[in-house]
């Protein structure tokens, strides 16, 4: 195994990891403020990718306008979901909440395949320039770099948002204790709606990015499942953790795939490696790198 190949693996891992980070960020935002585990995160990404595709390719809207429309669509969708489905579930046991988001995921998936079919669709024209860039002696497609930079930008924006903006602080307060937040004059309902909106928008943008690189098809929701290793590694309620976790999982899955192919002649490790890490992390450090430890007192 040459150094060159290793570097290649790391770089492509970082790129795919940055998409994981974006989706994991959406997941964490919802979990942080509402304690809802969203199994439909990957579907939000898929819907975003398809809606943007519809605007750009099927209707011929210029890309930046289409992205804006996709963001708007994501907001409306998130509002509907939060109001109609998640709000009646407040106070229900965790299994009900998990199942309701799984049900939601199935609905989204079948709507997408009913409307757009299951074949691979390709964004045309391409958003990003198709040139190659050389990093450390390796050719890297420029769209990968763009994708990486955009993801990092999103992460930075939301870290700042949570730390300094009024709404961000209110969201953290809600996450800490809904009752206390309410008594301080924070509208918990609005916070819930806001977190769903942000999450849908972030995932939607992630979907548009990945759609540009790989094309879109109805199995795009698989990205949502990779969110679990990423968020568990980073700590479920940590923004920074989600970002780092996504990147680490991306790199790790690429590296283990490369190693197993080179040394054990075992292919397809990529699909399963993140989940093996997940189990290991859960056994060693269940609250992840930056997660808040839950301490229970009797």
């Amino acid at each position: 195994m040459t150094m060159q190949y290793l570097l290649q693996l790391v770089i492509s891992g970082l790129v795919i990891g940055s998409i994981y980070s974006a989706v994991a960020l959406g997941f964490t935002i919802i979990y942080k403020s509402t304690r809802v585990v969203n199994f439909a995160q990957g579907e939000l990404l898929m819907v975003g990718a398809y809606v943007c595709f519809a605007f750009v390719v099927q209707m011929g809207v210029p890309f930046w306008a289409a992205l804006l429309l996709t963001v708007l669509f994501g907001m409306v969708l998130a509002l509907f979901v939060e109001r109609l489905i998640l709000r009646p579930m407040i106070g229900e046991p965790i299994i009900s909440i998990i199942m309701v988001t799984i049900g939601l995921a199935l609905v989204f998936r079948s709507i997408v395949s009913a409307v757009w079919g299951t074949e691979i669709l390709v964004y045309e024209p391409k958003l990003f320039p198709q040139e190659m860039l050389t990093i450390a002696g390796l050719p890297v497609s420029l769209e990968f770099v763009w994708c990486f930079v955009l993801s990092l930008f999103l992460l930075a924006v939301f870290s700042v948002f949570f730390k300094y903006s009024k709404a961000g602080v209110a969201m953290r307060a809600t996450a800490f204790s809904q009752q206390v937040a309410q008594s301080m004059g924070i509208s918990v309902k609005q916070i819930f709606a806001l977190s769903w909106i942000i999450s849908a928008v972030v995932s939607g943008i992630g979907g548009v990015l990945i759609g540009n690189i790989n094309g879109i098809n109805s199995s795009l929701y698989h990205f949502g499942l990779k969110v679990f290793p990423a968020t568990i590694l980073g700590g479920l309620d940590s923004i920074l953790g989600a970002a780092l976790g996504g990147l680490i999982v991306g790199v790790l899955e690429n590296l283990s795939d490369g190693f197993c192919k080179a040394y054990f002649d075992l292919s397809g490790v990529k699909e399963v490696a993140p989940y093996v890490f997940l189990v290991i992390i859960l056994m060693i450090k269940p609250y992840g790198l930056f997660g808040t430890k839950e301490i229970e007192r009797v």
Partner: protein
Amino acid sequence: MHYCGDYRTSYVKDVEIFQTPFVRVCMALFLVFLLVLPFLLKGEYQWILLQILIASIGAVGINILTGFTGQISLGQGAFLGVGAYTSAYITAKMGLSFWVGVPAAGIVTALCGMVFGIPSLRLKGLYLAIATLASQFILEWIFVRWEPVTGGSYGITIPRPTLAGFTFASDRSYYFLVLVIAVAMILFASNLMRTKTGRAFMAVRDHYISAEIMGISLYKYRLLSFGISSFYAGVAGALYGHSLKFVTSEQFNIEVSVVYLAMIIIGGLGSVLGSIYGAIFMILLPKVLSALTEVVQADLPSIARLAIAFEHGIFGLIIVLFLIFEPDGLAHRWKMVKAYWKLYPFSY
């Protein structure tokens, strides 16, 4: 004889499964009905009946874990697969009989379930759900990749069971075999919930800290619950494999896990009877949907096409609607209906 309200004079009476003579007569009649039913139904319906029985075993299994012990499992589909592959390997590749294969499937799956249940010592709720989700993907991957045992993507062809020269080749004869196993296992589960073990499970579910303070070893009972639940899954998976006469990895994907979770949620968490209602509901649902699509096919072809594309969506929608409007499941609703009619028209 019906009493107005509960009239019991001993604890033994309070935990009886069949509480009144009337219920006992009803159950006996129902059993006779189950024995006669396959003779009244045609080929395809016999198959559906068989699948309902097998799904009932699996659903009771996951309800022991999720409904009674409160440990969420998203890996039931893969555990069914472990059972199916174990029995397939034993009967098809080692040449042993079905009567070895099915118990072995149960035991191997129970061990496998307990291995993946180890994280439950430290994890609960959401974290455990994610751990079992990981086990689903890991096991699924093993099904595809471990070719010498699982046959890879080609799968394994397996025979129907034989007993003293008689082969359970038809769906009807196999149905009776499965019926015996299912009744035994469901009765065992109902009885288990009346024992110390069953009550410990429920204590762990309701408040695990209190349970531990009262001297219930959390680790032991959580692992035990994983083991028993996986044993049921293994047997159900093995029976399913033998019913299809073919085992491949696609039969045990994440969607199967979701279907089984949906069964116990729709049927009723923490209710043996509810698991069976759920199994009936979830097995019949796709059949009813496709029958409905066929009816409208001639007149409204476009709607029929949409319905086919939307099949999973309808399934998801039903889960969502149930959770919002009927969170306690069919078993609870059935109790309410019974309570209403029992005292009708003087409802208090």
